[in-house]
């Protein structure tokens, strides 16, 4: 089944949804979800770069002979990006927890101690 350009369109859609969430939502947890959406879109884009049509996984263990393999480098890039995303999300959520303890609210428009 030929997917054509569909994965790239889905990736762009995810990034656009993520940017929309960052711009228009007020809850801090929703902002973190928006960043996570953008990261997912970019990771999907990175993995799709290596796909070659009718390719199998790029692993030599128990590999059937004579088949074309997809590129392994984008998979390494995506894995690194997922790990970085994990660390970023953990840090952002920790800050959200502390903000809730200090201000009692998670609404961006009401946390305005820093001005100017």
């Amino acid at each position: 089944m030929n997917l054509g350009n569909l994965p790239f369109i889905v990736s762009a859609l995810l990034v656009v949804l993520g940017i929309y969430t960052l711009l228009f939502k007020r809850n801090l947890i929703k902002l973190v979800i928006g960043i996570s959406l953008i990261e997912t879109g970019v990771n999907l884009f990175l993995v799709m770069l290596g796909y070659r049509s009718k390719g199998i996984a790029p692993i030599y263990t128990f590999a059937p002979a004579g088949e074309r393999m997809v590129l392994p480098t984008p998979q390494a890039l995506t894995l690194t990006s997922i790990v970085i995303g994990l660390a970023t999300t953990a840090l952002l959520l920790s800050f959200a927890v502390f903000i809730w303890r200090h201000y009692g609210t998670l609404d961006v428009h009401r946390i305005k101690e820093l001005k100017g």
Partner: protein
Amino acid sequence: MNGGMSVIVRTVSRFVYGLILVFGFYVIMHGHLTPGGGFQGGAVVASAFALLVVAFGAAGLKGRLNAHLLQSLEEIGALAFLALGFLGIGTAFFYNLLANSGGLFGASVPIGPNNGVLDSAGTLPLMNWAVGLKVMTGIASIVIVMLIGARKEEVK
């Protein structure tokens, strides 16, 4: 997240916890042959830990958590990774000294599709273990802080 869940959940999770641990260690160990490796296996083991925290709650696990031990193990994992990087500094940093050398993890790797030799690839499985240790203890620490420590207290 103080209270745990019902009896059925607790019994099943006690049983499944061991299976998840075995699978996680398998993924770490075979990182140089099949998909997986340090981070992926470490995340699986940490999810087993998160399962326990959700099933038993903070009160149920009160006596068994040692945050200082987790932190020390995390640092040991990181230092082991850097030490393995410095191992081949005579040639270059991160040089794979043990590969194809006949010693620990030193069997030679056949070219092309093969049946997977566990004994090969030199410092790679050792680095997988170091990274896996760091990731599993690191994510477990994050899970502890977030699920158990996130209570609304007054600010000092």
